[in-house]
């Protein structure tokens, strides 16, 4: 479904992503973890076209999409839920959802588009006419996820969905992400909290300084001494990753 080969992203002289390759299949949840500044969000921006790719290729459903304008991948079913949610604060919850529906919404506003999505997020059902600014952090993140689903995506790029949320809200949001499995959507999940990200994933990648240094199943990653020592706070003298 989504195949990224040797993708590089640069901001001026700074190379944020240095030739990474990864893949996401339909119905699969793949996490991309790493420390702050490792280049996780830049990977997603490079895939979706929000950031210009300095090299490499992004193939989605057999089509090359790298360096297309950012509105193109969305139309093909590759939808990014950005870091910090980026909701439209002055618009209502319903209007935010309609914007997520994008080309699937058609020329007229229709309630039918809400059907399945709003059912999936019951917390939003009674708040459709409220301003997005009135939502709590957890509800706002749910709206961001719901908005992503409105486009009927084939693949979702989720950027730090736990950012700024309370532990309880984080748990709710991750329960919803795990609950998306039956929808057969490929999910590339960026998460700074390694354990949290891997807890819902089928596979994972560890990113450091713009390069993938580890890849495998959650069990393989969580038993890797390098990852354990650097990200899970275990003993200082564990052997170096080779």
């Amino acid at each position, binding site marked *: 479904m989504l195949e990224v080969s040797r993708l590089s992203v640069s901001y001026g002289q700074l190379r944020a992503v240095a030739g990474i390759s990864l893949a996401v299949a339909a119905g699969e949840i793949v996490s991309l973890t790493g420390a702050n500044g490792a280049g996780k969000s830049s990977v997603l921006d490079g895939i979706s076209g929000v950031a210009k790719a300095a090299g490499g290729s992004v193939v989605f459903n057999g089509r090359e999409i790298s360096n297309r304008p950012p*509105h193109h991948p969305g139309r093909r079913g590759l939808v990014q839920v950005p870091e910090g949610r980026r909701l439209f604060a002055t618009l209502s919850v319903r209007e935010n959802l309609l914007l997520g529906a994008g080309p699937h919404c058609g020329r007229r506003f229709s309630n039918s588009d809400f059907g399945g999505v709003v059912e999936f997020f019951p917390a939003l059902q009674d708040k459709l006419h409220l301003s997005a600014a009135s939502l709590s952090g957890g509800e706002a993140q749910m709206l961001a996820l719901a908005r992503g689903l409105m486009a009927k995506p084939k693949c979702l790029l989720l950027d730090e969905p736990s950012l700024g949320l309370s532990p309880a809200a984080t748990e709710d949001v991750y329960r919803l992400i795990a609950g998306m499995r039956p929808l057969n959507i490929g999910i590339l999940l960026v998460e700074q909290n390694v354990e949290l990200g891997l807890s819902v994933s089928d596979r994972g990648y560890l990113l450091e300084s713009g390069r993938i240094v580890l890849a495998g199943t959650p069990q393989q990653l969580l038993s890797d001494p390098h990852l354990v020592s650097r990200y899970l706070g275990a003993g200082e003298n564990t052997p170096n990753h080779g």
Partner: protein
Amino acid sequence: MTDFLQNCIDGVMIGSSYALLALGFTIIFGVMRRLNLSFGPTIMLGAFGGAWLYLHFNINPWLVLLACIVFTVAAGVYVERLCFNAIKRNVAITSMVSSFVIWMQLEEIAIHILPDRTSPFPPLFASLSFEAGPFYVRSEYLFMFAVAVAAVFAVERILHRTWFGLRLRAVAEDPRAAAYMGINAGRVSVYAFVLVSVLGAVAGYLILAADQQVTPFFGLWATFKGLIAMMLGGMGSLPGAIIGGLLLGVIETQSLWYFGNEYKDLAAYLVLFLMLIARPGGIMGQRLVERRRLAFRRV
């Protein structure tokens, strides 16, 4: 008192055309976060196109109105491509300067179209006067007011009841987030320019039809009136644009009546100056800025 009220009626009628001009400035400012100084000159060029067809082919005034709209839309899209689409959002000053350069270019084109500088402009219908007690109103101003009210309702409906309006508000609030939603901000910007060009062309036609003449200086005049009305009402606020336009009309007619023609514009500038000191965001702009600030702080 009768004179004062009559001036208010006249001011509201004339101010409705200023409100349409201010709406044009406000929509573009809201979407692009940049001032389009050549908005007035695009209207002027559209009017010159209509006047040229009227002079050479003696076409029906309704067709002149249609021609004004077509020429203004073409000029508006030209300005959008050259001054706004081609220049990144974070260099607003470059856009403003280039829109000023285009202003000069459009004036030159207008002078080449009709070198006589002042050209006749056809009214839609013969002028009538309606009286109610001590008050009266000219038919062309009543028509101007009715069209302005209809246009304001149409714009409100477009912005809040259509897919385009929703996208336009999204791009205005956060263009990057709009890109994440698959919205083509460039296309939305072109449609926004088409919308404001239609508004501007209708306003321009109604003003010029009341005067029955057009000169290349109409561009400067329209830009000044629209900008002052927008700043009085509050930059970026649609209700503010309407209130600012009507207020400017009333200030002008009152000062014309009580102080004479030479003080008409001076009074408008003085009120604007006082407004900028007392309420820098304009009548509605301050509240708009505060509301947005609170909303963004939460999300």
